[in-house]
């Protein structure tokens, strides 16, 4: 128990809100037992925020749920003490019966919980108001009328406009940010002493994230709540947390004040994690390629409208996903396309490959641009066969490393498929080529006979890259290629891509929502907002000196992973 003593050092005992000692949770799965949480101890202190940081599968969410005793069936708490302090005698949550009256009196009343996915965390068939009223009636014993009035009041506190009307709306009528606000209102309805926020902004765009985090911080401050913030985002931790606990494979490997964790990490893992995050905060030191010759690939006034057929069979244009976008990619260049969800960046990427046909505009390809040859090919007008040739030269790396590999094919079949289709290799030549490709992306030769399900997310993304490289492409379009990966793996994959670019003379169109990734990887960046490119410039210029209002608000909303230099608080708001 030497650890327990350590934790208490910096807090006066009467400020404690909740303590956890030696908590362990096991999952009894079909094939094995997973020790999801092992011997975890920490304190939550009134008015302070503890960030529980870790990569996926580190057991952070399970820990949070264990505090409320709401973990799912195959999991069980095997040991540990959970003590809730309050005005009365301390309560031992771990000793209470499953779903007992005592536990229920704590849930929602004394510990509030905010989840990652506000859409699925609220019932779609009941109004927002009804779901909040329920909480109030349950814990604060209000009448229906009182509860309704209080609900409107709460919605107003979380800055939802027209709270009277909005209380009667359903979740799908709300935007993502509004939903999360409603969720916060619900979690705070009964004035809890402890607030647990489980990845509260992961599903949201950065600008919305900044607003929501502002709101949470302000409410926490007003009410003096103890908060546990669960996140994988070190930037958010630096901006928000007072203390940090780093989790890995179910254990807390290191905990302490935020500043110390960021500037003086003690364990190798924390150091790696912070290094990987910090590295993405710098640009790569590569001279930008010359932009004097003809561009390799150009989009000219490309637009995409998604229509909806009316009941009379006429098409009416519903959404303009991409609105007259023009851009150029020069040989050897990494062009980033940045935007929030719904900005049209993915549709733009798909139109470059004609997976989605542009409604108007042209895509021009100059296969000889590297040698100064400006001969143009109009991709938008290409017949099937020519398109095949184009798609050999321009390859796509997908976002989801799980969905993009056919689970029924071995790695050899996946990587070799384009070679077989193109008739380029077969038999042992094919095998050699696949081995060579796997080697290029840092996978061993014996990975060939395995199936995708045997690999982790990062390894799968490497397989996807190997497939993209199989046909010796000139251009790779990477659509959020690293956003599904944990931060340490993300940096590895980006380094791999940079290395491959140097060796194979590639050009990249890099589509991402994550500014830091783009800064690290790209030479030039185009910022998209509502289907339009609002600003184009070098990566450094966009990040350090954005010109357009939207870009400024976007950049300033990105959390900075340095607790000594918080950025979000002084951000610029963009009104449109």
């Amino acid at each position, binding site marked *: 128990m030497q650890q327990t003593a350590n934790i208490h050092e910096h807090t006066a005992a009467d400020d404690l809100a909740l303590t956890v000692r030696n908590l362990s949770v096991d999952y009894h799965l079909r094939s094995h037992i997973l020790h999801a949480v092992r011997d975890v101890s920490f304190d939550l202190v009134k008015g302070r925020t503890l960030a529980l940081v870790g990569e996926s599968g580190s057991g952070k969410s399970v820990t949070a749920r264990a505090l409320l005793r709401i973990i799912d069936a195959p999991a069980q708490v095997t040991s540990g003490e959970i003590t809730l302090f309050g005005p009365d005698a301390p309560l031992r949550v771990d000793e209470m019966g499953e779903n007992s009256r005592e536990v229920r009196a704590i*849930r*929602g009343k004394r510990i509030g919980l905010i989840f990652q*996915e506000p859409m699925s*965390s609220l019932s*779609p068939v009941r109004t927002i108001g009804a779901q909040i009223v329920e909480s109030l009636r349950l814990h604060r014993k209000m009448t229906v009328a009182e509860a309704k009035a209080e609900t409107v009041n709460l919605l107003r506190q979380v800055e939802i406009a027209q709270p009277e009307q909005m209380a009667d709306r359903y979740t799908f*009528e709300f935007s993502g940010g509004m939903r999360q606000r409603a969720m916060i209102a619900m979690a705070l309805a009964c004035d809890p002493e402890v607030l647990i926020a489980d990845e509260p902004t992961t599903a949201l765009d950065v600008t919305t994230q900044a607003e929501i985090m502002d709101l949470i911080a302000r409410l926490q401050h007003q009410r003096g709540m103890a908060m546990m913030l669960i996140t994988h985002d070190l930037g958010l931790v630096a901006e928000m947390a007072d203390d940090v606990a780093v989790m890995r494979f179910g254990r807390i490997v290191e905990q302490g004040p935020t500043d110390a964790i960021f500037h003086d990490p003690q364990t190798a893992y924390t150091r790696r994690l912070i290094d990987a995050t910090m590295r993405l905060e710098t640009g790569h030191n590569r001279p930008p390629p010359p932009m004097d010759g003809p561009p390799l690939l150009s989009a000219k006034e490309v637009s995409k409208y998604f229509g909806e057929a009316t009941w009379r069979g006429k098409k009416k244009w519903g959404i303009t996903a991409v609105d007259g976008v023009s851009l150029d990619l020069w040989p050897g260049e990494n062009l980033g396309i940045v935007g929030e969800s719904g900005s049209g960046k993915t549709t733009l990427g798909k139109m470059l490959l004609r997976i989605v046909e542009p409604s108007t505009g042209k895509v021009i390809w100059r296969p000889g641009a590297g040698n100064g040859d400006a001969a143009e090919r109009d991709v938008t007008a290409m017949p099937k066969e020519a398109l095949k040739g184009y798609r050999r030269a321009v390859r796509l790396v997908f976002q989801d490393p799980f969905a993009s590999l056919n689970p029924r094919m071995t790695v050899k079949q996946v990587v070799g498929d384009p070679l077989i289709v193109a008739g380029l290799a077969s038999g042992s030549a094919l095998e050699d080529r696949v081995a060579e490709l796997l080697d290029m992306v840092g996978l061993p030769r014996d990975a060939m006979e395995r199936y995708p399900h045997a690999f982790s997310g990062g390894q799968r993304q490497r397989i996807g890259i190997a497939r993209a490289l199989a046909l010796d492409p000139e251009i790779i379009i990477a659509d959020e290629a690293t956003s599904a990966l944990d931060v340490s793996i993300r940096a590895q994959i980006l380094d791999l891509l940079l290395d491959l670019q140097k060796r194979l003379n590639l050009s990249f169109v890099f589509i991402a929502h994550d500014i830091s990734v783009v800064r690290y990887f790209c030479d030039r960046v185009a910022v998209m907002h509502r289907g339009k490119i609002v600003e184009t410039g070098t990566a450094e210029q966009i990040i350090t000196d954005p010109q357009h209002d939207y870009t400024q608000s976007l950049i300033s909303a990105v959390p900075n992973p340095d607790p000594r230099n918080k950025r979000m608080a002084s951000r610029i708001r963009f009104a449109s």
Partner: protein
Amino acid sequence: MFGYVLKRIVLMIPTMIGISFIAFFIIQLPPGDYLTSVIASMSDSGQDMHPDEVRRIRALYGLDEPMIVQYFKWITGILLRGDFGYSFEWGRPVSELIWDRMGATLAVSMASLLFVWIVSLPIGVYSAVRRHSIGDHVFTLFGFLGLAIPNFILALTLMYVGYKYMGQSVGGLYSPEFVGAPASLAKFWDLLKHLWIPVVVIGTSGTASLIRILRANLTDELSKPYVITARAKGLPEHQVIMRYPLRIALNPFVSAIGWVLPQLISGVTITAIVLNLPTAGPLLLRALVAQDMYLAGSFILLMGILTLIGMLISDLLLAALDPRIRFT
């Protein structure tokens, strides 16, 4: 909402036309027509019909005209005058014969639907909430049996059991003394006494499948994040289940009107033949065998329309229940 209702009704029209056409096509399938079978049976008994007489009847019913013309005559008659044609075998207009029978079909189907709902709701919820408990396994086994045993076999078995152990004849909807008697409380009670066997027979498979669906849906919904939210609010477990996942898992109960109804009407048809109930089934079978085309066609048409209306009602109810459908 009004637009939604209108859209559903408009979309139903082509399906209705398709059904009426299929119904008419089927009864046209057998080689020859009613007249040929009459002539055949008459010549069997040594009589001959005068060719002029044959020609007269043919012209009267348009039997010589192409199918599509006959179809239009039939369908316009129904739409404009409510005239479903003439039953050759019974020598009466079809519309005189069908309504009682269709009414009985509808009544037995509705009773079975109620039975299906009442039985499957508690069992489905129990099975989902207490997954892999002994009770769940027992119900699952019964569910499988209910799905596996065809209606008519169940009817036969119940009939045999009733005859053997209760000495009771279980056919029909009324005891002989009440057939044709004016409506009374005693008659109604007698009806209930007879009704339970067909209702159980017809409802069993529907109950079994609805239990399975409810169990599966509720199990899915139980693992959704909003259930955890509800728990994290501190709601007691039964309220968590009733107010959140069950609300959504109930959708199949409403849509059941749409897909259980055809099943039930099917079930009524064959069960009625076995149990000799005065519904459409036995009359349809007889009409088909005798090639009494307008009668058979009208039954098939009306049964199809009935299921379509069931689907419409279930769609509308679903929209009323689930705001997600209403708003999209």
